[in-house]
């Protein structure tokens, strides 16, 4: 069996190299990320205000290559080492350590012509190399994921596919795409002594349109409009939730040598939830508040200074609903980076970042009131990139 695998791998490599037009990129990196909550808040009215802090070290690996003018492959994974500390007041800290691979993504892009216009088909696979229980284990001490996405992935097998076309419109281009995301079942249960519960996240259908107007010196403006419709999420084949459709609109100005920015909004419609007796009905309120963002950046040679402001409105539920209310909040971040060119085909990139996050009304203070929680988040990273 091992010889067979070797032969297959060898044949694939020879085929790739034999195509002649081989090109690609390999990227290796290391990143340190740390966060803490700057204030202590009673999360529940219990007599235990908590402190949260933690850090992660990531070693990502990314590889992409084209085997001819239209076909390319990509793959990436990363290994994480993490420390998550949660300290209730007057009690000992709960500490979790992570030493895991995350899920791995592999896929291919095929560029071709359909309807006499440039087109692309992108198919990706999520290979479940991660631990499906880890994302829940790290939740207790992490920054809420609506502000900073959990970097770790352990979501089981998944497939995504997208087809897009680009139509000429004078000097501009208009694009249209449609995509589908399939999520397989996985079990996020992690040893409660409970029966296994298979979680099947809802599949998603994605459509988007863009209009790109190029200008001199590689400057361009992009207007985007997209929507995502999600199917039902189920546990043990029982529908429990369906995220409401959402609409995204954004405007970007890109100048690769100076100032750029991206301004956007995302608006959610009501979803569906399981109610008493298992009835699956439309939510009376919207679970996800609208979110706005502005991401300006400025490039000075090899140095880039990027920043981001993000604001999330409270969702539609009243504060008295301790289950479904979400107070939203905001994030302000700054991210300088420097690219050190080593030669014509390789470079080192150094980056840093700081984010301030105010998760509004996330805590329930003693006496029934609400309280904000403030977080700091720092990142430091470097990566080595080489063209193949």
């Amino acid at each position: 069996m091992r010889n067979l695998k070797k032969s297959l791998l060898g044949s694939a490599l020879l085929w790739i190299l034999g195509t002649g037009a081989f090109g690609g990129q390999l990227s290796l990196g290391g990143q340190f990320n740390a966060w803490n909550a700057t204030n202590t808040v009673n999360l529940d009215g219990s007599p235990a205000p908590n402190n949260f802090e933690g850090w992660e070290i990531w070693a990502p690996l990314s590889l992409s290559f084209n085997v001819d003018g239209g076909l390319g492959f990509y793959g990436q994974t990363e290994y994480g080492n993490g420390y998550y500390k949660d300290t209730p007041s007057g009690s000992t800290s709960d500490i979790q350590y992570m030493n895991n691979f995350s899920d791995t993504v592999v896929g291919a892009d095929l560029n071709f012509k359909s309807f006499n216009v440039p087109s692309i088909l992108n198919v990706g696979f999520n290979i479940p190399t991660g631990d499906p229980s880890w994302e829940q284990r790290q939740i207790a001490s992490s920054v809420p994921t609506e502000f900073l996405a959990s970097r770790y992935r352990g979501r089981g097998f998944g497939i995504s596919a997208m087809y897009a076309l680009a139509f000429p419109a004078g000097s501009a281009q208009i694009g249209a795409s449609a995509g589908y995301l399939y999520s397989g079942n996985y079990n996020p249960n992690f040893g409660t002594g409970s029966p296994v519960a298979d979680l099947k996240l809802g599949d998603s259908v994605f459509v988007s349109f863009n209009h790109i107007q190029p200008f001199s010196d590689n400057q361009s403006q992009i207007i985007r409009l997209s929507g995502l419709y999600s199917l039902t999420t189920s546990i043990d084949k029982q529908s429990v939730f369906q995220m409401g459709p959402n609409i995204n609109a954004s405007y970007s100005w890109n100048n690769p040598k100076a100032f750029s920015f991206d301004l956007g909004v995302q608006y959610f419609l009501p979803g569906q939830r399981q109610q008493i007796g298992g009835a699956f009905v439309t939510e009376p309120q919207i679970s996800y508040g609208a979110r706005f963002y502005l991401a300006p950046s400025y490039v000075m040679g090899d140095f880039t200074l990027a920043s981001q402001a993000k604001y999330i409105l409270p969702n539609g539920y009243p504060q008295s609903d301790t289950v479904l209310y979400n107070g939203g909040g905001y994030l302000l971040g700054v991210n300088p980076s420097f690219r050190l060119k080593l030669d014509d085909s390789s470079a080192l990139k150094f980056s840093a970042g700081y984010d301030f996050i105010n998760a509004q009304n996330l805590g329930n203070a003693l006496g029934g009131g609400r309280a904000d929680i403030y977080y700091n988040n720092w990142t430091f990273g470097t990566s080595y990139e080489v063209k193949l």
Partner: protein
Amino acid sequence: MVLIMRLIYQLLFILALAGSQALAAGTQKTASDGVFTSVSGKVQVKKKGKKFQTVKSGTTVKAGEKISTGNNSNAVLRFFDGSELKVSPKTQFTIAKLEKNGLQDKALKFKLAVGDLWASVKKLTSSKSSFEIESGGVVCGVRGTQFSYHYDQDRNIVTVHVDEGTVYLNSDGHTYLFTAGQTGNFYNGNPGKSNPGQSNGNLGGNNGNGGNGNGNNEGNSCLADLNQQFGNSLAVNGDNTFTDPQVEGSGKVNVSAQLAAGETVP
């Protein structure tokens, strides 16, 4: 390459050896104790075959013993693994199981007859470990979290409020997930009005996998942008892709190619 492969095989052998030793250790079950770290008012313990006796701070308890608190009385119990139970007034429960099974596995189970318990559970580090509270036909299983648990015996209502982490409740063959900030009610073992279904907001509702692109289509900025939008949209809508903005060239995130990893572009 041969040296590297040899090193990998050696590491795998060491890991396998360590695993077998842990497995062997895991087969040994030992009973473990809890201790009252705080007692206020009238707190009593009933040992097997004996009557309720009033206890004070420092008293130890074992599996099979019943604990009762009177009016305006409360207590804090700390167990061998560091987990804590805060017992409210007018509460009665039985310690059904206190076991340490090997190096990492442990099992703690309580049967709540009436009243309120607030639990701070040490993170469970193995899949065989459990921390459960049972009452009114509902089994509440948790791992490394904090939650309060109330059982109204007269009306057979179980109420759980999750402070941190995730709590699973099993009732009538169904598993219900509750995450931080959520409250669940069960009437006669059935899920009640305010339960959040079985969705898990922290998992982002409708998440998924995949959805990337490798920037292979750099020659056509329109297609490249659509490809990136696809990856972005999946990442944004429930934080659902394996995002690694730090790795340029993956082509799946446009704006965040300039940002540090861990951030999302909404």
